[in-house]
């Protein structure tokens, strides 16, 4: 087992949420709301070894992108710390967050929004490496051509603008831009979610090839259980800001432990499983503004007991390399 490359240590992130326009209008109508605190990520710890791909799975708003941005040094954590090769990835400068490393790069959720529409894609890819002296300005053109080739794009495309590319191609450009920084760790936020099925496979294959060629370490964020199973060595399941289960991929899919993981697997429609063969999880996803007390999953959990309402279960080891946050694994729910 190689040493930890990334160490996420008791990290939390809170956002101050000001009421939206709609809520302010409703406020005038009487249903008043004040500034509130969103607990996007709560007390997450995770270490990632060199060469490993860790999948981060969960439903919308559970904090995947926020955790990804913290790892990439785009947000500073409210509590806890993130160490990359023993050095912090970001520091807080008053209200601004300063990213301290170029070795962690992020590919953002939306390939349409993350590319500057007025910049030729060659310049977009070259910008970071030139600024950080990874490549000299006069060599940038050849460097970009090489990067585009790596992600399966014709190097002559570097004079084009983002609107001239399809979604799949834009995603490749976003990956090329991140790779151009010679990162040791890549955070990919839903890299295939916006792509058509036939294009998804192209980008997943590209990722698997790059991983092999460049010995990448990666955090792969997705809500798609099939995609995550395909590319990850380990998977962390998140629910309302917390990691509720962490396990090697094959073991997790063969025998999930946490009631939420089990319910999630049961509720996902699958190709080839056939009609009506899915059992939905009851109840709504609670708002991270008002997470339930105790175990966040208790209002929807078929196995919840009185203790689950009082006490939050800690993420604790349930076997070699496996952890789960459920009272059923220790002490019971009474």
């Amino acid at each position: 087992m190689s040493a930890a490359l990334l160490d996420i240590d008791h990290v939390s992130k809170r956002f101050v949420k000001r009421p939206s326009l709609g809520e302010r209008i409703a406020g005038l109508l009487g249903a008043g709301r004040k500034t509130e605190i969103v607990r996007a990520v709560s007390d997450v710890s995770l270490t990632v070894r060199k060469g490993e791909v860790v999948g981060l799975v969960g439903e919308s708003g559970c904090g995947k992108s926020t955790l990804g941005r913290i790892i990439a040094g785009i947000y500073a954590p409210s509590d806890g710390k993130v160490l990359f090769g023993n050095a912090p990835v970001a520091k807080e400068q008053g209200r601004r967050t300063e990213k301290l490393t170029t070795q962690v790069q992020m590919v953002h959720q939306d390939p349409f929004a993350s590319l500057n529409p007025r910049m030729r894609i060659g310049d977009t890819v070259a910008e970071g490496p030139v600024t950080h002296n990874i490549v000299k300005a006069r060599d940038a053109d050849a460097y970009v051509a090489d990067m585009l080739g790596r992600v399966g794009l014709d190097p002559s495309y570097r004079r084009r603008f983002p609107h001239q590319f399809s979604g799949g191609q834009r995603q490749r450009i976003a990956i090329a831009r991140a790779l151009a920084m010679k990162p040791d760790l890549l955070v990919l936020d839903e890299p295939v979610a916006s792509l058509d099925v036939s294009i998804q496979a192209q980008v997943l294959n590209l990722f698997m090839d790059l991983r092999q060629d460049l010995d990448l370490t990666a955090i792969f964020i997705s809500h798609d259980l099939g995609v995550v199973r395909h590319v990850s060595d380990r998977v962390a399941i998140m629910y309302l800001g917390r990691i509720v289960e962490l396990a090697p991929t094959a073991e997790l899919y063969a025998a999930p432990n946490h009631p939420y993981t089990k319910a999630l697997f049961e509720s996902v429609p699958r190709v080839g499983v056939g009609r009506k063969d899915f059992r939905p999880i009851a109840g709504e996803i609670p708002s991270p503004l008002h997470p339930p007390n105790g175990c966040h999953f208790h209002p929807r959990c078929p196995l919840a007991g009185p203790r689950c309402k009082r006490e939050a279960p800690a993420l604790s080891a349930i076997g070699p390399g496996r952890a789960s946050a459920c009272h059923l694994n220790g002490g019971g729910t009474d």
Partner: protein
Amino acid sequence: MSDAILRVNNLQTQFQTRNGVLKAVDGVSFEVGRGRILGLVGESGSGKSVTGYSILGLIEAPGEVAGGEVLLKGQDLTRLKGEAMRRVRGAQIAMVFQDPMMTLNPVLKIGTQMIAAVRAHDKVSRKVAWGRARDALAKVGIPSPEERLDAYPHQLSGGMRQRVAIAIALLHSPAVIIADEPTTALDVSIQGQILAEVRRLADETGTAFVWVTHDLAVVSSLADDICVMYAGRVVETGAAADVIASPRHPYTAGLLASVPAEHEPGERLPQVPGSTPSLADLPPGCAFAPRCFKAGPACTTTPPVQTFADGRSALCHYPIEPVSCQPLSSTSTTYRSAS
């Protein structure tokens, strides 16, 4: 199937653009029977939404339905204009959009909107309308429907809002509901709830659904029949289970083969090469030819619709021979928990 409630025949919908006529829907045909769910699948831009809008007479200039029929219980909706179409829409056939706020007005309470929707077609008292609204919310599985009638849309979650939109579509017990990617923006656990409710509604009320989606897994677990679109045309139709177990069109086969969950982790995925063509500049003959592994000499000419004995069809010169082996499910790993 002769007892079809909705039959779409050779539908043609075009948009006038600066660069000429864009055939967004080019000869689409399918039918849906009572209580059945048809999954209309295809990638973005393949013409699914335009098909849905065309059925409901919602295409506006510079677009037009240029040909074909939309037969709802035998009546051709493409011939209905203005007020006549408005009487049918919402009463006999209704639409659910990807974004429920296309249906909902943000500044009115759910109850106010639903009462108006009832009274748009039925001259009943507000009290009776309120009761029907409450029943419709209960039908789609919304807890404490009375309270929800008193709420504004923004006070509900995305999943709840989509259920309300489905409830509104159900108010007049329409023969058909066209649902355009209604769960695409929702989380899996919420999507699962809605799919389960829709299946139950189709079975219990006899309402037929055309369920538009790009998600093959959704179609597989929900639909009775499937209709696959590519570049404005229907390329394959048939019973959902059959098509998924043994696709006959190379495009459908390519889509199914590239689903990661059907492969060993880490294995290279079979990929469909190239990208979706622009409708403005389709290759001559079969639009799929530049990406097709089976393409042959005939494919530069328009392929015929080949119909097969089991009621299936494929738009292809060289359709794939059916496999008679087990369906996918018995060969692939499933995510079931051990217990």
